[in-house]
């Protein structure tokens, strides 16, 4: 198969560095260029010695590399619409970060542009390619638990805002400044905006859509950020399954500008745990465990050293397959719209302090 010539845009997303190894090792890709949002980001990238040309002007990169067939859109959420316009005009396939936009009019525009252009647009929800999640799907679909009553899940992490400041900027993250609730000095665009996975996963596991959601934000763990850093969500799917989610930034972090060893204060920086109750029994799962553990450098703190994070291999394999064989990705724009609508409903619920029906 002819390798796909691919570029990474912006490099401001926390997942950018996950692609560096995958694009180097997967023979189905030829990594040809990157664009960096700022000189500072460019310099950090160049220190990695990847041998890939880096541009601070996206248009210049596209002009100099007309061979680019696909991009990883590793940018702040408010950059996505313009980048969609550029890519669809140039017929460049898109792998977009977790939230294309929270503005549903913009979202509709994106769908229209992608359909007119005929490109492949896949959304980066890597949990689908996690082997523990694959096992959960298999156990649920083979009816090992019987009729499911409830699915509870965590998607909790440290806060990335010190390394990726756009995630503490309501306009960059949520698209505009919207007060979290009346009388609150915080805005939408924090932990919830960072954690769509559980909202997506429950739709996939239950083959159902949300009937209603209720969400409540706690007082911030970090007093000096302008977006929400913890919240709880409960609700019901249309097929009757209940759920409780915790999509918080509830693991404290060292305020590093460049993520690296010693980032975490709590031993495990990222957790997706799932519990499912059904008429035949219960399932408990840790999508990122077990691992190995140490209390060495740099901070002598007990720390989880992950043995996972291979999700990008499967995800990129699907992206290749969709581009070369003209298939629609499992997580495409249309599928993902319901997930983003559910997240918006959570914000409405926080503001109104009431259940929101979809």
């Amino acid at each position, binding site marked *: 198969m002819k390798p796909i010539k691919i570029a990474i845009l912006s490099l401001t997303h926390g997942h950018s560095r996950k692609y560096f190894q995958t694009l180097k090792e997967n023979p189905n890709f030829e990594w040809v260029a990157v664009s960096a949002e700022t000189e500072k980001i460019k310099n950090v990238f160049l220190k990695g010695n990847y041998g890939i040309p880096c541009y601070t002007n996206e248009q210049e990169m596209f002009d100099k590399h007309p061979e680019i067939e696909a991009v990883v859109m590793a940018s702040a959420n408010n950059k996505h619409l313009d980048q969609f316009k550029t890519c669809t005009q140039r017929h460049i396939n898109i792998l977009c970060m977790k939230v294309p936009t929270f503005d549903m009019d913009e979202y509709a525009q994106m769908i229209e542009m992608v359909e007119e252009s005929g490109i492949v647009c896949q959304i980066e929800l890597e949990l689908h390619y*996690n*082997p523990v999640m694959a096992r959960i799907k298999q156990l649920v679909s083979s009816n090992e638990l019987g009729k499911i009553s409830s699915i509870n899940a965590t998607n909790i992490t440290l806060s990335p805002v010190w390394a990726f400041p756009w995630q503490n900027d309501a306009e960059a993250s949520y698209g505009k400044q919207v007060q979290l609730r009346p009388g609150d000095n915080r805005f939408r665009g924090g932990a919830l905006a960072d954690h769509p996975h559980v909202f997506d996963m429950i739709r996939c596991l239950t083959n159902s859509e949300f009937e209603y959601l209720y969400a409540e934000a706690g007082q911030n763990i970090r007093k000096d950020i302008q977006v929400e850093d913890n919240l709880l969500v409960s609700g019901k799917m249309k097929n009757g399954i209940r759920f409780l989610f915790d999509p918080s930034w509830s693991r404290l972090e060292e305020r590093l500008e460049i993520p690296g060893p010693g980032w975490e204060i709590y031993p495990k920086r990222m957790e997706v745990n799932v519990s499912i109750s059904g008429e035949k*029994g219960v399932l408990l799962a840790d999508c990122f465990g077990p691992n190995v553990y140490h*209390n060495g450098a740099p901070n002598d703190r007990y720390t989880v050293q992950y*043995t*996972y994070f291979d999700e990008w291999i499967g995800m990129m394999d699907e992206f290749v397959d969709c581009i070369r064989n003209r298939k629609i990705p499992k997580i495409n724009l249309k599928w993902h719209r319901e997930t983003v609508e559910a997240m918006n409903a959570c914000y409405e619920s926080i503001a109104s302090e009431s259940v929101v029906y979809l």
Partner: protein
Amino acid sequence: MELIKTERDVEHSLMNLLEKYSIPATGPFQLFGSFKPDVLDLQPGCHFLNANKEKTQIPLLPWRMKRKFTELKKIVTDAVIEEPCLFRISSRGSRDNWTLSSLLYREMDLCEFIGNGKIVSIQANINDTEIANLIVKLDNEILCSIEVSTQLPGNAILQDRHEVIGRRGVASDMVVDTQIVQNSVYTFTEKGELSYTDTDMELFGFNDRQIDHVRAAFSVLKDSALITEWQQQHKHLAKLLKIVFESDKNREKINLKNVSIYTHETN
């Protein structure tokens, strides 16, 4: 619920990986079965312990493919824990899956692999053919205990622990306050308690040992330099095993400096 993967499925999965990553297979190979001339025989090294090894028999060290061991090795190599002094290994398997020799072979290899050294002395204490307690030293001065047993009931999951203790920090594959190996998924149903640990999406559905076997075979087919390295390590481990039993028989610590040609090599 799930179809058991056959030996043929395992060999197919290796061929799929080779094709995906454009690795040319130089000739016919097998992952199971008895020796056949002109067929590359890729099996765990402990399978070749009691046979006259042929040139085409490539001893694999599949446990080295496990991410938990590569990460532990990385922690030691990158000096995340500094100046390791003590290494504690415990490994208890079921007799239908392991012999004392095969488990000792595995754990002595991991001792050297993670500890970044070569065993230079052994004191062994063996009870029948199912229990062995070893005190060994690496050439980098790390003192190690290796506890091995094959008395778990049939088909039980291997219960192993690898803990490196340094002047700065401890690293372990066992989370604090636990005694048994953790899993990713547990189900509690009418069938009782079942557990699953899946770590490899490209080989999803295969069991742990099958995955390690395929990954190890893939590694040697991808990088032929590994064949020489692992052949040398196999010879070394086979020699260490003889010394283990000799140490127990004579009730003495055996210093290998005079008997092993590999003493000063590093992994």
